[in-house]
Each structure stands twice: as C-alpha cells, then as structure tokens.
C-alpha cells in the first residue's frame, strides 16, 4: 500500500473574514484542502495562521464566509462538533494532562469512541471491558508508531519538550481523525527533533492517509514536506500553490525578507 493519491476537496474555506474589535485577523481568505493532502499554512508572526486554524475547528466564528467540510457547509457550530466530524488538532503551546501518563493521555484521545457509561466503566464489566481493551490496542499501535514505548507509563510533565509534542500528536491520532490540524509542531525544537517530527508527520500521512493541515513558520520544513502551501500575511492571502511556486512568488519573498521603502 503506497501513499494514497490526493483526492477530492475535503475542506473548503470561502471568503473567510474574522476580526476582533478593530483588528482584522483574517480578511477574505479562500483556499481548499484535498483528501490525503499535506497542506501547509505559513506566514510571519501575526499573519493569522492560528486564527485560521481556530476557524477551521470551530473555535472562532468568522463574521463572513463559510467553511465546507466533507461537503457539508457548516453554520455556527460548537467546538466538540468539529471533533465528532473527524477533525483533531495539536496546540502551539502543548495542552496535555501533565500529571497523567503518556498512555492515559493517549486514551483520552479515544474518548469520543467510548460508549460505555460511567457505571459500566467503574465496575469494568462487559462492554466497558471490551471497549477498554480495544482502545488500549489502538493506543498501543500509536505508541509503537511514534516510538513512545520507553515513556509509556511516564507522567507527561516529566518528559522533554520534543517528546511532549509527539505525545500530543499521538493523542490527536488516537481520535482517528480524517483531518489533522497541527499548530506549529516543530516550534522550539532543535534540528534533530524537527527531523524526527517531519518523519512522523510524513509517516502519518502515508500510513493512515490522514489529511493534514500544518501551520509552521520554519520555511525549510514546510517546503520539504508539503504538497501545497498557503501563505498568509497580515490576515491577507498572499499565495497558494506548490512549494516551488510559492518559493518564487515575489509577494511572498517581500513578506518574508521585507521590501525597501524609499
């Protein structure tokens, strides 16, 4: 089984505009993400990358425009509905349960798939037991996939930053998402950690066929691994295209390197 070919449009953003009071975070942004694609959103600080991600998973509600996911145009929705629809994400500043073990953190990612009641779980009987075993099996696959065996039972708070990031990716994967949003997965990492993370992101895409939207401001990383890149600057859409197209786009170069104003 090789990498799955890029398919139809999975997610479509239409004319999205978002402002906080007088600050225009996003203005008239349109782009799409296709199935099994590895798409990146890049831009300098304050370009609106994280806002865009928050719009996609329903945390922010744009004043204008709409998001279409799996062919359904969404109206104002609650955050948890995004998860139900199959969108999972990681955060720029790690948001794990620090006192819980890696294993338990990953198990929380399975929450949506658990159907047994609290009472059943308390006595660990019947359906609860069956489910627990099934989910643990799935989580073990992810532990194996992300090479987390040696820290399986370690409380997350005791792990180095790079590993915590990986645990967070693992928790998102545990939900078996069809769309995975990664908010600066390589931020603050050293070169080796970055390379590892790139490998894992590519492997996720290849192995599970997960569609991935990645925010990153490290250009090198993005250009190497993405299929398509969307560039934002001050809430505006600068360019969309393959890494090569974007690299040679004059506006992008200006935004990153600055323009001489005389």
């Amino acid at each position, binding site marked *: *089984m*090789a*990498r799955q070919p890029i398919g139809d449009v999975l997610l479509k953003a239409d004319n999205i505009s978002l402002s906080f009071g007088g600050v225009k975070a996003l203005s008239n942004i349109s782009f799409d993400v296709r199935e099994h694609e590895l798409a990146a959103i890049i831009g300098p600080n304050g370009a609106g990358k994280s806002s865009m991600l928050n719009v996609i998973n329903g945390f922010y509600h744009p004043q204008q425009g709409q998001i279409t996911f799996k062919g359904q145009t969404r109206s104002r929705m609650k955050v948890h509905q995004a998860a139900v629809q199959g969108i999972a994400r990681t955060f720029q500043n790690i948001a794990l349960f620090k006192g819980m073990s890696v294993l338990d953190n990953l198990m929380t990612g399975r929450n949506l798939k658990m159907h047994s009641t609290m009472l059943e779980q308390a006595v660990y009987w019947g359906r609860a037991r069956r489910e627990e075993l099934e989910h643990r*099996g799935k989580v*073990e696959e992810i532990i*194996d996939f992300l090479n987390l*065996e*040696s820290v*399986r039972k370690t409380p997350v708070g005791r792990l180095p930053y790079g590993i915590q990031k990986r645990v967070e990716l693992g928790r998102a994967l545990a939900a078996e998402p069809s769309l995975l949003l990664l908010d600066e997965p390589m931020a603050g990492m050293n070169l080796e950690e970055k390379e590892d993370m790139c*490998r894992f992101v590519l492997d996720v895409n290849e192995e599970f066929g997960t569609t991935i939207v990645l925010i990153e401001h490290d250009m090198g990383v993005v250009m190497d691994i993405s299929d398509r890149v969307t560039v934002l600057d001050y809430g505006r859409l600068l360019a969309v295209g393959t890494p090569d197209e974007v690299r040679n786009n004059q506006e992008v170069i200006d935004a990153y390197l600055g323009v001489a104003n005389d």
Partner: protein
Amino acid sequence: MAMPEPSTTAHPPAVGDADTLPKLLLQHARNRPNSPAMREKAFGIWQTWSWAEMADEIRRLVCGLKALGLESGDKLAVVGDNRPRLYWSMVAAQCVGAIPVPLYQDSVAAEMIYILNDADIRFAVVEDQEQVDKLLEVKDRCPQLEQIIYDDIRGLRDYAHAGLLHSIAELQTLGRDYDREHPDFFQHCVAETRGDQFAIMLYTSGTTGNPKGVLLTHDNLVITGRNGVEQEGLTADEEVLAYLPMAWVGDNLFSVTQSYVAGFCVNCPESTDTVMTDMREIGPTYYFAPPRVYENLLTQVIIRMEDASAVKRKVFHYFMEVARKFGSRILDGEQVDFMDRMKYRIGNALIYGPLKNVLGFSRIKLAFTAGEAIGPDIFEFYRSLGINVKQLYGQTEATVFICVQPNGQVRADTVGVPAAGVEVKISDDGEVLYRSPGVFHSYYKNDKSTRSTKTEDGWVLTGDAGFFDDEGHLRIIDRAKDVGKLTSGAMFAPKYLENKLKFFPQVKEVVAFGDGRDFAAVFVNIDLDAVGNWAERQNMAYTGYTDLAARPEIAKMVRECVEKVNADLAEDSRLSASQIRRFLILPKELDADDGELTRTRKVRRNFIAERYEDLVNALYDSRSAVDVDLEVKFEDGRTGRLLAKVEIQDAEVYGVTELRKAG
C-alpha cells in the same frame, strides 16, 4: 587452516543432545513443543512463541530463502536490534548450509562496505528502514549483494526496488508455497546439517587494521554452549534478556546456542530504550553485561539515593555497610555470625530486595561480566547485594569461554580458572594461550592471520599477558606486547598498575614506567572533578589544575592510593617487585590535543616518555623536585607555555626484602 578439534569429555545428558542448532531446534519442537522458546514485547504485551511455533516460523523462512535462491555456502548478513525474526533467519540460513554474518547495527554505511565485500554477502536480513537505507546507499559498491529482506515495513511501502527488497512476511509466504511443493525439503535440510559445518561468521572489532571474520562451526558453538550449561547448572527454566548486539559472540552463545541447548526462553526487549523496564518485567535468571552497564546502573542508584530524604539515606548507607561486610561472604557460603546474618536479612527486606527488584535483578542466579576489567567497588556492590556476578575471560576466537570464576571463589582482580573443556597455558614470554572445543576454525580468507594466531596443535595466542596466581586463578595484566621487565628480571605490566590506580576516583590517568629500569614509577593525573570537590569541602582555595596538583595535601592523598596499590601488589609473589616506589603528579592534564592520549582516551606511553623525558629521569635519579617548561596547545589551536615545579614523591613499599625473579 583446518585442524582436528580436540575431543571433549563425556557428553552431558542435556535436554537437547543434537550436534547442530537446527537439529536442536527440531528436537525441542518435538519433545517440548509447548514450552516458551522466545518472547518479544510488542504493542505493550509480551508475545510468546513456543518451540513448535518457532520451528514453524523458521521452517517457512528456510523455504522462503531457498525459493529466493540462497544456497549452501552463501553468506547472509543480519543487521538490526535483537528481534526474533532476525534470530530465526540466522538459524534458517544454517539449515540450508549458508553462513549467517551478524553486523553491528550501529555501524555507518561506509563501515559496512568492508564487511559486506570481505564476506561476499549475497543476502541481507535487516530490521527496518534505517538499515535498508544504509544498504541501498552502498549497494553500488557491493555488487554481490542480491537480496535485502526487512522485518519492519514502516516507511518502506514506497520503496521501488522490485526484486531486491522483500519483507520477511513476503518471504514467509513464498516459503509456505515452496514448502507445499517440497514438503520434505525442510526436514531433509536439517538432517543434512553436520557439527563440523560453519555455523556463523563473526567479525572481530579489529583495533588494528581491518576486522577479521572469525569462522565458528556448529561444534564450536554447541559443545562450548553445552559445557557452560553443564558447569553452571543452567536449566530449561532460565529466562534471559537478549539486548546486547547480535554481532557480539556472547549474544550468539548466551541468547542463541545455550537457549537451544538447554531449552530456555529468550526475551527480546521492546526497544533499546526500554531495556530497564523490560528487564524488570522479565526478571532474568541468567544475565550478562559489560562492566559499563553495571557501572551505569550503580551510578543511577547512587544519584537517586542522593535525592532521597535524609532518613532513607541513613538507612540505605547503614545497610549497604552491612552488605559490604557480610554480603559477599554469605554469597560465597562462608561462616558469618548469627547476629550479622540477621542484620543482613533485615537489610534484604528493607533495602537489597526492593533495590534488586527495581533493577530487575531479583531472580538472577548467575550474572556474567566480561570485556574489560571491572572496578572492584562496582563488582563488590552487586555481590554484596547477593547477586552472583562473576567475571569471565573470553574471545570471539574461543567461542567466548576461556576462563570463568567458579562459584564461591570470586575475586575482583582475577578472571577465574579455565572453563570446562578448556586448557590454558602461559607461554615463556608470559602470553596466555588456550586450546578448547570452542577454538575457531579460521579467519575467513586470511590464512596468514590464522597461522599467526593458531598453532599447528590447536593452541590459540590471545595476545594478552597474564599468569596464574597462587590460588590457580588467571590474572590478565596487559596486552602481551606492552609487558616488559625490570632490570631484576621481574615482570612489569604497565597497564595493570595503571588500571589498579585508576580505580580510585581521585585518579584520572596514570602512566607507568619500569621496563628496563630498577623499579616501577608512575605519572599521575588527578581527577579535577573529584579532587576539586574534595578541596572545596576542605575550604581549600585553588586556581586550577596546575595549582591543585602541586598541593602537598593532594600529594598525600595520591600517596595513600599508591600505597594501597603497593600493599595489594605485595600479596602476589609475581607482582610484588613492581610496587611503585616513586611517583609524581603531572602539572597538566594529559590531553588528546597534545597527542598524549589517543582519541579514545588511551595513554600513549612512548610519546609521553619522550615529551616528559626530564620528569622520567627525575623519577629514577635522586632529585626531589624538577622545574618543567612545557608547550601546551589550547583548544582553539593557540599554543602557550606552562612553567611549574614538580615534586617527586616517594611511596612506601611492602614486604619486599629482595626483588624476586619472575618464575
């Protein structure tokens, strides 16, 4: 050169008495099909294969390899961590008469080229993408490499190398089809294997020149393995953890051969990072590790204890003192007072037991250390906890065993008596020679080396200098070429003295002189961390290494170390002549940048003798102090001068009225 193997003493009635590994496999599969043969932790759970299941897996591998074209006499490389399927493919290769060649999994691609070509590797069975990438990288320069078979498919789905790359699963599917068409093939193959066939080829690390391929036969492995099993009383109920490199001869003997002979279960850890956890879960009964593993574990324990509360620390230190006094003696079955025995029991309940449990040492019956000298403190620590750690002396060329310490006669500074079936003698110039059923057949494609290592009548030259002490235990003292003589004719082994002194934490490096001189004398480098720490606690101000090294307090401290070594040496008739009479503390740390150490931090004795010629002379004339003027190189490449006054110290020597001749 082929040589008739010396016959061994009567065969023991072991569980498996066949003469090759494949035959042993089938014997176990027939006699005890449901006993566990191998475990691997995967997805958080220990998965078990019984002997029958393992034989079945290997059967499919044999047929698959045959279907891919592996022939008798071919070489099959095995590269990866300790994975069951890699172990199986080694035995599978042996079934068709091919020779498995395990490689160190951490060698870089360029290092592999030499071995791949030297061994004429046609097939390679590797663990994962990392190893596949390395082999593909060097494929152009290794034209004879035809097939690469991998265990873990992750990341390899998109590799387009049809006909070259196969997964083990594919291979086994091929094997199943082949087996269906040739149902007698496997049994026939196994029946054809003979004890005098080559079973494995292992490359020696080769500190000088290129590595050499050591060819071992099934007889070498099986007879040596069986002798060990019998001597140590190993049974089919042992548990071992296979975590040392597969390319190391020890892993092949302990985790493969002895398991096949005695029928015990081998456990493969989940990954290299989880060895500690896996060890605790399995609780091996039979264990082996190089000294550095024991050292690391001890360091971890000590560090954790430093962080513990004051009460816990007190209790820990009290009972460790009890253990130090009585632990080894109890282990060796000596007489110990009832009260002291009781104290040790309480210590066992409170400290030693839980500690051993955390380290995964609770069930250990026998633990080996080998490879290099182990610090006496480390060695004693484990023995005092009641863990039967023993030293063994071995070589790839001997299929591991040359000497082993017998139970109850374990000393920190000997390597024991000749192992079962092994004869050991010392040549006239002090080199250790041995002859055993484990003596290797030859070096692959290197008759010259074979001839210079192995004599016509089967004795192998180890290159190590040693002697049997008064109790009949072998002591290895140095590489033979470094051993010299004092003017009195007494043996002088510089490395032996150096190591003995280096076991003191205050001492970092030592350079010993004495060859062709009247007595032994040493240069000492103090350990700036350890000694500096001590100086701070004494409220002693110092500006740096040179300053500290010149202090009389430090000289006194080093003299105590030297005199302890002398007292030790005096107990042995052959070494008492090389007691250290004079020493000095070097005004600078020996440094690889100045060419005084090799990059692996070994002292370059001759270079140092030249560079510090005046200091060496001062050791042997009656001067009590010397002024030195040295050129030193800083890390940034600049050079500077170092001016210092170095005092020469005298040390007490013990019990030598006259220098005895070495006999």
